[in-house]
């Protein structure tokens, strides 16, 4: 039997031992009234592993995963060092549970502590949790946390925040009395005037993103200063790889930094599993959702690690907990930690600079094409928007035939941006691939 050690003889012996002399295993289910038994269980018969593998591989071939991709939108095709897969394949990591028993889980616990430390160093913040589901739910949790910290219920959100994340935030809060105001973004930096217009002493938080959905980078220090005068917190969603060069949330005085950790050694995998991270100022730590690992020692003063500040959590506080989260994305957090260790402080700068240089090269190549306008109103990191003289959907379709995923059509989320396309360039794209893209785009537009 699949993955079940017991033989028929074992089962008979065990049933007999516990007083079921008939040897009928169904006797164990006699507490379930007959009228409630399953009315159907119509599933196919089991198959061997190699038959199933063959079938799933056939399905896999129906995906077009071999495209040269310039699609980003918050989820990026970065290089993943092989050592990550090798380490997370150790079953002592992947077959363990949440580390409730610290003496039997020091490996996981120390790794989480190191992850928290690496996230703090990356974001310039003081305290990180052990992970949340993804960048979107992390932003939602940050908004809820700001409401708890300030006791206020108005949120101002920058229109440059990932539109999917904005939709998620509205979904989660639809039954709560929270007032949302969204400030418009043309396609550049955060609109200071609009934010200040709505900012008042009822505002719990202003939510920003850097780089924003259009790839534009910003220095939000001035917004933070104004918000703090009103007692409002500032939440910023960030792209971890960009922090190799960009001003960190900590340096801007941000109160809660969140983000999607996928770019840190986690495969795109059609949307998950990913990694939500959250890092905050230390004074807010008791209002933070999620697990947290802290250092302590045993009787012999040996250093050890435990889950701490658990009185915030659902298994202790039930309906009064800071969040309902239980399982998080521990193994993805481990991947991110290993990535940050392998790449190190020099490597992070290098990969960030490579992204920017290749992005600038792509801009220069694309703007030589007749009718293509590269928006240069704001500096960017590795993603930018271009205006096309023809419908981007049509152009993207044509380029897919040449095995190039050209970018994301912004009209999907921004009605007024029907002619715009979002283009991302990571360190994996070569000069030759970028040239191929430019050629194919020109061809699709004019031939």
């Amino acid at each position, binding site marked *: 039997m*699949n993955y079940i050690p017991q033989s028929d003889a074992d089962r008979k012996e065990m049933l007999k031992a516990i007083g079921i002399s008939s040897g009928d295993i169904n006797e*164990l289910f006699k507490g379930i009234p007959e009228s409630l038994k399953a009315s159907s269980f119509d599933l*196919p018969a089991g198959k061997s592993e190699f038959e199933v593998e063959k079938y799933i591989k056939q399905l896999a071939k129906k995906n077009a995963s071999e495209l040269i991709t310039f699609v980003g939108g918050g989820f990026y095709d970065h290089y993943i060092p092989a050592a990550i897969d090798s380490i997370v394949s150790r079953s002592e990591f992947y077959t363990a549970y949440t580390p409730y028993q610290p003496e039997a889980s020091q490996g996981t616990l120390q790794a989480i502590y190191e992850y928290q430390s690496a996230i703090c160093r990356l974001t310039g913040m003081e305290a990180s949790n052990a992970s949340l589901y993804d960048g979107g739910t992390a932003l939602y949790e940050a908004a809820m946390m700001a409401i708890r910290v300030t006791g206020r219920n108005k949120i101002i959100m920058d229109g440059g925040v990932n539109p999917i994340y904005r939709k998620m935030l509205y979904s989660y809060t639809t039954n709560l009395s929270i007032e949302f105001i969204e400030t418009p973004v043309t396609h550049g930096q955060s609109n200071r005037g609009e934010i200040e217009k709505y900012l008042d002493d009822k505002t719990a938080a202003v939510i920003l993103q850097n780089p924003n959905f259009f790839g534009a980078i910003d220095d939000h220090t001035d917004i933070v200063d104004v918000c703090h005068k009103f007692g409002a917190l500032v939440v910023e969603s960030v792209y971890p790889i960009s922090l190799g060069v960009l001003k960190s949330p900590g340096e801007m005085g941000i109160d809660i930094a969140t983000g999607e950790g996928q770019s840190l050694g986690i495969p795109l995998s059609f949307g*998950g599993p990913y990694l939500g991270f959250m890092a905050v100022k230390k004074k807010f730590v008791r209002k933070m959702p999620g697990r947290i690992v802290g*250092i302590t020692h045993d009787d012999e003063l040996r250093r050890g690690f435990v889950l701490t500040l658990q009185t915030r959590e659902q298994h202790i506080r039930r309906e009064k907990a800071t969040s309902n989260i239980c399982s998080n994305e*521990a193994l993805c957090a481990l991947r991110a930690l290993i990535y940050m*260790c392998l790449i190190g402080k020099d490597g992070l700068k290098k990969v960030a600079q490579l992204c920017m240089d290749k992005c600038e090269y792509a801009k220069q190549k694309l703007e030589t094409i007749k009718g293509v306008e590269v928006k240069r109103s704001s500096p960017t990191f590795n993603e930018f928007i271009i205006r096309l003289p023809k419908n981007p959907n049509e152009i993207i379709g044509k380029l897919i035939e040449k095995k190039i995923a050209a970018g994301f059509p912004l009209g999907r989320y921004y009605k007024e941006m029907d002619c715009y396309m979002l283009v991302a360039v990571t360190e994996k794209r070569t000069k030759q691939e970028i040239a191929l893209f430019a050629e194919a785009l020109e061809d699709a537009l004019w031939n």
Partner: protein
Amino acid sequence: MELIFEKSRPGRIGVVFPEKDVPVTCVLETKYKRNATAELPSVSEPEVVRHFTKLSKMNFGVDSNFYPLGSCTMKYNPKFTEKIAQIEDFTALHPLSPQLVRGSMLTQGALEIISNLEGALCEITGMDAFTTQPMAGAHGELAGVMLIAAYHKQKGNNKKCILIPDSGHGTNPASAAIAGYIVKSIPSDAKGVMDLNKFKHALNDDVAGVMLTCPNTLGIFNPHIKEITDLTHSSGGLMYYDGANLNAILGKVRPGDLGFDVVHINLHKTFATPHGGGGPGAGPVGVKKELIPFLPVPRVIKRNDGTFALDFEEELSIGYISPFYGNFGVMLKAYAYILVLGKQGLIDVSENAVLNANYLKYYLSKYYDVPYGENCLHEFVLSGEKQAKKGVHAIDIAKALIDKGIHPPTVYFPLIVKEAMMIEPTETESKETLDEFISVMAEISRLAEETPEIFKTFPKTTPVGRLDEVKAARDMNISG
């Protein structure tokens, strides 16, 4: 053991980059640049690999240890499904691809798998439709409660509270509360199930829904369950099934047949995907027909020509709860597992899980109190009260087990049992492992009787002894 940061030496690196092949260098204005470098460690690949390999050896896991952690279903995770999840045609797939023009044609394989998995889960649970979006069990609970809220909103109902038995998982009340509901806790009766009279008393027009685990955290199937779902429906409420304990009932009972309207499943429990030291999991949610319009978007649909597409229609939907389609990598493993096991294999899972639990309960009840002993299914709860009188508490028994190479049961939960030890062996443990566990537990009970004082010295075999948790909370050293 040293932290990885303590091993950092200037100039070392663990990744080789290609030479820059473009003739431009992008220079940013100073105000956009970071001042202080992100102080990540500088270490080589061999050092990183050795560091984490050493850390891994400081963990218990299902592959190396018996792990009877109640309500967590720590079954063996087949190696085959890990292999399936690594197929590059899935791992390299960008989640925005289907939103490009004709993009669903770029991801037909992935969409078909989601659709097939949804179909299998419907049949297993007796529900009419599934969403795979929730990324963990608690996330599924939140999505489920949001569905209940959307249903009532559309009906014009103004119901404010959710009833939950006191033996429920902590995530139940937490999920209901953050979705905006008032939570009312219903006590358990002498048999360990939700007290029917107290439930009837609490049930009124204001009740939007009832959240139940069945079998509950004591491993007991509530014989009044149909009466509870009928009563709730007749007062206009909906029934929520917490599927954390689904491993007990595959092919035996279906939440849909019992009258539940919303169900979440933990793929990382019943369907054998690994727990990863605390995730990633996946918590797909199933609903009955009347709730389908409220499911989150996008929904995977099958076109008349047999191809698959995504439906983004938001009209009545609760909207977006995940950026995309959920933890796809986890779904792949669960789907492969279901295909390999098939109908009989899944029935075998529950029968053997229930047999193993009853076998352990039978022998362990000779040494420990079993406060709610009747008809346990996949798990049961021991009380260490007898041992506590000697000064040996559940936590002490847990630490003694660690020294024997066994991961402890869930302790001090459910809250309704004093000195609770919740034991779930799962179907993947051999009779010999169970027998060994019984003899270890018997030995611990004897030690508790004879030399209770030695328990304070356990565990002795681990890299660290018992840790000072008060100090950790007070010092709050949570990053270095």
